[in-house]
């Protein structure tokens, strides 16, 4: 089996089942109580803490760490969930190195921040392991809110609205809830089916009815929702993907990275998943890194990320870049795809070197070719299937800072809405804030 990563084409079983299980273990294993205690002791309990300001959901980080220090991780979890009901997933997937941990004063002092993400996981795991749900619903308001999309923004909004006493119906076109928590992100960040477990835990609040298979254009219209409900929250994500616009991009062996990641996340046995021998990923964001690293972990021999700009412009954080290189992924900068070659299936990609002129990418004319029996396109997702009549901004649904769209009684949040980074934690914040605004609007 040792040489099977050298087998040509797209094949399953490049590594033994055990190797694959080991490869896809937790990226940051859970702290035990001692590790949590040592890590928590490093927090200085800063005034108006920079970490809290950097958190899109404004979790009171010094407070929850102090609660861990004093032996009450469940209280710590409550502090986290008050602000961020998906605090468990955010603890696993947040790019903390560019958020809370980047601004930790111990990063300033010692180049080693308090490990806030792992502490958050310790606290949230502790509470979730106890079973039950820490919040209860307020008395029914008799108001009904429709949510479209059961991703982080939709779930966050649903939980908050249900907690405030509203009846919530979530329409999710896919067969499972969770959105990118379930179908995106790398498997080693959400092990043991955490995304699904978190959704079940969240639903314990009650008052949320999820209808799978329902989506805009799939049986639903915005007008009908507006007629049937007191308010509508759209959290439909970015369903479209950008095309390379390079000859040969539709050859066999070429696919969208998000599709590959979704397939991987849903696979019950990763050793049955096929991957190329020579994998090239086009893009520079988190999706590119997730696709590349997981290809390598499945046993691809050569994996290259080809990004059209320089390293500093890469959307993936330096931590993610280092993770990729540590797994054996090669990062190439200032190259863009020209064509995908191959008789029938892809076998080579032709790249052109680029230079950045006035902020724009332009080809230098010099090209190179890389063996590529599998190509993943990770050059961004786009809004698709949004209802007519909503004003857009930068190709997203235009919203104000509490998620109101241009249409009365319709709010939006998450990746489909303007403003904020496309992160799970940002989506949670937007869902929560829209829910609060919907609540004021309905009760006002």
């Amino acid at each position, binding site marked *: 089996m040792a040489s099977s990563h050298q087998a040509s084409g797209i094949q399953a079983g490049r590594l033994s089942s055990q190797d694959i299980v080991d490869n896809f273990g937790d990226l940051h294993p859970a702290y035990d109580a001692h590790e949590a205690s040592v890590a928590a002791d490093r927090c200085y309990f800063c005034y108006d803490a*920079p970490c809290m300001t950097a958190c899109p959901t404004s979790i009171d980080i010094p407070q929850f760490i102090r609660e861990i220090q004093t032996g009450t991780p469940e209280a710590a979890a409550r502090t986290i969930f008050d602000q961020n009901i998906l605090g468990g997933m955010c603890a696993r997937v947040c790019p903390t190195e560019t958020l809370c941990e980047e601004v930790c004063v111990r990063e300033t002092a010692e180049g080693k921040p308090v490990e806030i993400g792992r502490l958050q996981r310790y606290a949230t795991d502790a509470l979730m392991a106890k079973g039950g749900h820490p919040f209860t619903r307020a008395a029914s308001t008799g108001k009904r809110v429709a949510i479209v999309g059961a991703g982080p923004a939709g779930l966050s909004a649903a939980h908050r609205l249900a907690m405030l006493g509203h009846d919530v119906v979530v329409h999710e076109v896919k067969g499972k809830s969770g959105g990118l928590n379930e179908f995106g992100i790398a498997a080693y960040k959400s092990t043991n089916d955490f995304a699904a477990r978190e959704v079940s835990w969240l639903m314990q609040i009650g008052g949320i009815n999820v209808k799978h298979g329902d989506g805009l254009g799939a049986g639903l219209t915005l007008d009908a929702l507006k007629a049937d409900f007191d308010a509508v929250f759209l959290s439909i994500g970015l369903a479209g993907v950008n095309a390379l616009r390079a000859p040969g991009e539709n050859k066999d062996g070429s696919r969208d990275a998000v599709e590959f990641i979704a397939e991987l996340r849903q696979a019950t046995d990763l050793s049955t998943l096929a991957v190329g021998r020579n994998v090239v990923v086009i893009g520079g964001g988190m999706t590119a890194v997730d696709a590349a690293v997981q290809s390598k972990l499945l046993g691809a021999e050569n994996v290259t990320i080809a990004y059209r700009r320089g390293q500093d412009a890469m959307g993936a954080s330096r931590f993610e870049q280092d993770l990729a290189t540590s797994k054996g992924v090669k990062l190439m900068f200032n190259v863009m795809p020209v064509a995908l070659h191959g008789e029938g299936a892809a076998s080579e990609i032709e790249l052109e070197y680029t230079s950045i002129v006035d902020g724009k990418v332009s080809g230098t004319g010099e090209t190179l070719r890389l063996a590529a029996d599998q190509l993943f396109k990770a050059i961004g997702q786009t809004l698709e299937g949004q209802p007519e009549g909503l004003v857009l901004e930068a190709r997203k649904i235009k919203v104000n800072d509490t998620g109101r769209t241009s249409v009365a009684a319709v709010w939006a949040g998450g990746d489909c809405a303007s403003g904020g980074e496309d992160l799970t934690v940002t989506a949670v914040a937007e869902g929560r804030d829209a829910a609060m605004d919907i609540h004021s609007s309905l009760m006002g």
Partner: protein
Amino acid sequence: MADLTTEFLGIKSPNPFWLASAPPTDKEYNVRRAFEAGWGGVVWKTLGSEGPPVVNVNGPRYGAIFGADRRLLGLNNIELITDRPLEVNLEEITRVKKDYPDRAIIVSLMVPCEEQAWKDILPKVEATGADGIELNFGCPHGMAERGMGSAVGQVPEYIQMVTEWCKKYYSKPVIVKLTPNITDIRQPARAAKNGGADAVSLINTINSIVSVDLDIMAPNPTIGDKGTHGGYCGPAVKPIAMNMVAEIARDPQTHGLPISAIGGVTNWRDAAEFISLGAGNVQVCTAAMTYGFKVVEEMISGLSQWMDEKGHASIADFMGQAVPNVTDWQYLNLNYVAKAVINQEDCISCGRCFAACEDTSHQAIAMSEDRVFTVKDDECVACNLCVSVCPVENCITMEQVAPGQLDERTGEVVSEGYANWTTHPNNPSATAAE
């Protein structure tokens, strides 16, 4: 290279670091390991009268409090004096002293407050060849209820009386170990001196309940379902011990009485501080019990380096140097003005100085939108709280406002001269300045 050799009451030891009378010095085995590790001397764990030895509890004897990263800051114990037969201890002391003639061995004693009891034991101790005795008048638990330990140490008349007996029946130095569980440490120290003591050692442990087990609602350490107060020691007690050492060192009645300092000595700096306050040497227990005997190596190397840097050739060179600078509050110079200064290069912007000053003190630190913290000289009273809470050493310092400069807080020019409370106009009993 500084000479750490210490001569305390004529007893020579290669360094001023002695192990205090406590579990680390209960047996020959431990004491030999201590001497091999480099300790200058030991005070052998307290011996009692001949006969059946005391018994210890069979449950936990220690409780602790911790700082960050579970660093032990304070230790409390309910152990009694040695629970091994007197004869065994005496034989071991004799053997060890013979093998380590260059190290100090002091024998700690606690027998009933009767002359005969002391008359009986002292010749036996003398026969061991040990260098001196230390009278345990401090143990706050277990023995006090039997009329010994701190029950004696809390009554100056008893201290004097027993000390006199010891001087009568024993030819070598007598050190009286004092309990801190009193109101004024000078009283027992004076009594010891009046009784003829060659030295005092202090402090013994402090009465304490170190924590409460909230599940069974009993103090720790818990024996079954009950606990009792124990003796507190370790780094947390050092400030209390230093004050008491200084009080004795600067009391005209006891000034010059040799002091063996005990209480939270954990590193060379602690030892240097105690010695500067008048101690002739130091005794260590908790640091050794926390980290093992090896800690003495850092104490030796650190003290040597510091003495070399300061040009002190021997311990005697700096012994008591800080004593004249310990004064009463009323004599502090009220014309001395300082302001806090935050070094922006070192500041990590945690804002703890701001929270402390804004919430609990003088609103003398400004915070900008981008988290730059600066001192408001017109509000700063130089209280030092910001320095105390800053996690970065020396990031915030107190800088004197020189005489002739304006104090922006008072709007007055800082005076050159010395002026204290005794002559201050706000003091109802002020004596007019001449």
